[in-house]
């Protein structure tokens, strides 16, 4: 059951994790904005649906909200020339007020509102798992095809070599805006799904979300690359599978730590230490690679 619980939690977080893969690995920029856009999505959805707007419209509005927030972060980075990390922290800071204004109160309950995932969760457990699994697979291949396309190749060029992009006559800012927009739109989608599953949207629900996502991406990609790839080569499929594995491992660890009765005070410390280990080995192996190339 622990394995299934972790799977269920991972599947809900897939949009967020894939979105973070897009910014963190493909565009090679650190964007913590999902902490805010996750709540933004949930907030827009909850406010609209409780005001009588249809589910579809509420969801689309939430996605648009995430997209716009992503564009705004891009503007902070490129127009205001603010460091990407600081820009995203600033964005989270400001989104707090915006989310509050949208919610109009700190917490909107969705328990009495009929939502797609809420209803599915109340019904057959296997069917529910199957549907979110199918959705995750669709999303997975959507992103896979997007990054594989000629358009996606230019995307990747942004992360690897921005100057090349300019020389090819493409506008780097355009790709950054699109990447951040898409990534934050996925975070908003994840917020909508979470709000439906948990039965509420709350102003504080986003705390640590971006780090969870980055953690999953870092752990998963590192693992899959070491297990299946020769050093230095790249496979998009392996990377994306890594994102799924990373997310799954993260939630599995969370569940197992709780199950073995680890004092929850140390839970974040343990997860953080593990993340630090993976982040540092990632750097070391890259350095080794570079050192080898120099030789």
């Amino acid at each position: 059951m622990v394995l299934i619980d972790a799977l269920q939690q991972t599947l809900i977080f897939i949009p967020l994790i894939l979105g973070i893969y897009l910014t963190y690995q493909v565009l090679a920029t650190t964007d913590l904005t999902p902490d805010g856009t996750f709540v933004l999505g949930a907030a827009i959805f909850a406010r609209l649906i409780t005001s009588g707007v249809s589910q579809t419209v509420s969801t689309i509005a939430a996605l648009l909200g995430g997209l716009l927030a992503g564009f705004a972060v891009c503007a902070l980075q490129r127009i205001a020339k603010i460091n990407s990390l600081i820009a995203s922290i600033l964005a989270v800071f400001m989104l707090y007020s915006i989310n509050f204004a949208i919610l109009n109160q700190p917490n909107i309950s969705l328990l009495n509102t009929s939502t797609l995932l809420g209803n599915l969760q109340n019904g057959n457990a296997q069917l529910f798992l199957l549907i979110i699994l199918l959705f995750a697979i669709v999303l997975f291949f959507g992103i896979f095809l997007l990054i594989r396309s000629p358009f996606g190749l230019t995307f990747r060029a942004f992360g690897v070599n921005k100057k090349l992009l300019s020389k090819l006559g493409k506008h780097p800012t355009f790709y950054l805006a699109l990447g951040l927009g898409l990534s934050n739109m996925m975070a908003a989608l994840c917020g909508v799904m979470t709000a439906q599953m948990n039965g509420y949207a709350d102003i504080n629900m986003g705390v640590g979300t971006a780090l969870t996502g980055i953690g999953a991406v870092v752990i998963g990609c590192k693992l899959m690359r070491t297990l299946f790839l020769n050093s230095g080569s790249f496979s998009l499929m392996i990377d994306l599978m890594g994102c799924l594995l990373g997310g799954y491992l993260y939630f599995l660890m969370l569940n197992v730590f709780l199950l073995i009765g680890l004092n929850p005070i140390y839970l974040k410390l343990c997860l953080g230490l593990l993340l630090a280990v993976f982040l540092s080995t990632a750097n070391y192996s890259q350095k080794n690679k570079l050192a080898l190339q120099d030789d």
Partner: protein
Amino acid sequence: MNLVRKLVIGLTMGLSVLAFNVMADKAPQKTVTIGIVAPVQIPAMDQIIAGFEGELNHLYDNNNVRVVYVVQNAQGDMNIMRSIFLQFKNQKVDMVVPIGTSANQMALSIIKDQPIVTLAAAFTEADRAKSPNKNVTSISDEVAVSKQFAFIHQAMPNLKYLTLVYSPDDRIYAQVQQASADAKKYGITIQKLQIQQLSDLYTVSKRINTNSQAIFILKDEMVVSGVPTLVKVAQARNIPLIASDDGSVSSGAAFAVGVSERQIGSDGASLALQVLNGTPAINVPIKIMTDYNVFINTKAAETQNVDLGRVTSASNAFSYPVIYLNAV
């Protein structure tokens, strides 16, 4: 590289084995397991839980059943909270006890077959009637702001200007609006100061208006964590800090009207007992706490220029028992 690979495989396998082992650990017979979910680690939670466990052990004393409490703390993280509920669901604990409004909402979404006894949440009979999952009863500790204002007006009839410091907490929001309405009734002007995070409190405390005659705080977890900051302001200005919980009075607020955290837990225990004895949770009436106490810190009241005689006579007028707390 090989080392990392081995480490990774070992870790994954280890975690899975561990998971299976723990799952295989079946509880002995004649045991009732109660899963308690605290959203954050604060003293109030510990007191609520202590009250709940203490009273339930007391009430269940005559029976030949061992009650096991599994207390899990979500550390303010929604993912952890979800994992906890999923585990309680799968371990088939006999009862789930969430504390607070958001924990209650998540419990209602996840837990289907086990009874839920919620402590300290904004959840009414009307909410239960509308909820798709009705297998729940709850104890609401929402201190009626109107009663607090009636008391404050009686204890400090000359009060015309009051500063209310609050946070964006789900329970607090409605209370702040109620406070504004009540203040108008008694001719009190309210200065509302909201903090977004605890670190704002110091800055905000400097914004308390110079003609403010008292500082008022609700049962507001974030603000309560920063009570010492407000106590300093109150002492410097010789105006009282009026709180809504006993903990703040122990930390140096002059007085408070409210319910004790321990009492919330022990009242919840009586609901839990009915459920354990076989009454379906849906048939156990949702209880709203009305056993108000007046908590007084005499030492703080002195430095904060409070007329204690008036406070105690107001307590008598409303017949609220007075409890003295002097641990500054």
